[in-house]
């Protein structure tokens, strides 16, 4: 009996030590590596801002889907509000869906909903409790975009474009990737570093 209790105690200590280590690693700012271009993103389920579960599959576009990690309070993400709304509007007609994901622990569904209404973000926005999808996709910042084809193959990962300030816009990397995929052409730039606010993980 004593041995059994000792085993349970040791096992518990390992679990606690593991949790402490994991928390420490996260505190040091480590984000899991993103999937490689060409790899398949598994379907997932997340609650929307009305707390209704949505699957990636149910929201996907027939010609592909753009996932963008966004934020309520990040000034960089907010600088892209109009561009994201326009992107969703422009490509919805072309069969590409845009989905926003908010993984910031401190921004709850009601704040995300109010923010979307205020900034006219008409595309679906999902909450990512415990940043599970941000971890799975290796998302570090907001805004950070992923473009997947109808088979969930990752075609592009990174920034929306080069400039926080739209007056300095030079390269619309995400739009270029979407246009190339729609035209059946090779995407020239499949990765471009996203710049923004760190996702505030749980």
């Amino acid at each position: 009996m004593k041995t059994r209790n000792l085993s349970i105690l040791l096992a518990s200590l390992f679990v606690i030590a593991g949790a402490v280590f994991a928390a420490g690693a996260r505190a040091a700012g480590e984000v899991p590596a993103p999937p490689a271009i060409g790899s398949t993103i598994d379907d997932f389920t997340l609650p929307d801002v009305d707390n209704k579960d949505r699957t990636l599959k149910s929201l996907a576009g027939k010609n592909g889907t753009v996932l963008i990690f966004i934020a309520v309070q990040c000034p960089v993400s907010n600088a892209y509000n109009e561009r994201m709304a326009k992107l969703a509007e422009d490509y919805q007609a072309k069969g590409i869906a845009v989905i926003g994901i908010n993984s910031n622990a401190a921004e709850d569904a009601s704040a995300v909903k109010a923010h979307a209404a205020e900034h006219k973000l008409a595309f679906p926005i999902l909450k990512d409790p415990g940043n599970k999808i941000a971890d799975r996709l290796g998302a570090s910042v907001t805004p950070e975009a992923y473009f997947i084809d109808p088979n969930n193959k990752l075609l592009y990962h990174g920034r929306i474009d080069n400039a926080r300030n739209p007056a300095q816009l030079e390269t619309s990397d995400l739009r270029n990737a979407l246009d190339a995929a729609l035209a059946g052409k090779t995407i020239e730039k499949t990765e471009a570093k996203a710049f923004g606010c760190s996702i505030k993980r749980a």
Partner: protein
Amino acid sequence: MRFTKAFLPITLCILLLSLAAPAQKRYGRAAKTPKPVTAVSPIDTEGLKGLLTQQRERPLLVNFWATFCDPCRDEFPDLVKIDKDYRPHSLDFVTVSLDDMTDIKTTVPQFLDQMKATMPAYLLNASDPEPAINLVDKRWQGDLPATFLYNEKGEVVYKHIGRVNTAELREAIEKVVSKKGE
């Protein structure tokens, strides 16, 4: 009468508080918008390249940060202490803000003033931050804060993405400073 006795001090308290509140608000507002004294210099990608690769007599610590980045703000007091402890005799230290250029005379120097930061302060002046990020470290995604320590030869001897572990950073500085001249 008992009621009046109890009522009078409460009324006085409310009156005093109501007078104090606007005063506090006024001071709060005044304290928030002093004219910044810290000068922040714009630096483009070429300038940053020159800064990082130039021959130097002392090790160089570079902290990339932004006012909108919470962990950056959080670690800043520790960096100011490190600056005060090392820069006078053994280390060069600069900060590079990745805020928008429109913040160069407002929020960035205001925050540096508030932190009492005196190390040379730059703000990246680049419409596209990617070349600058790649120049510093191809594996760095541009997430902030990011801290790099270079030896006199310009080699990176320590880097940390995310809020610094102050003890670890101090240890790395001690190591590179003590190796100087070897």
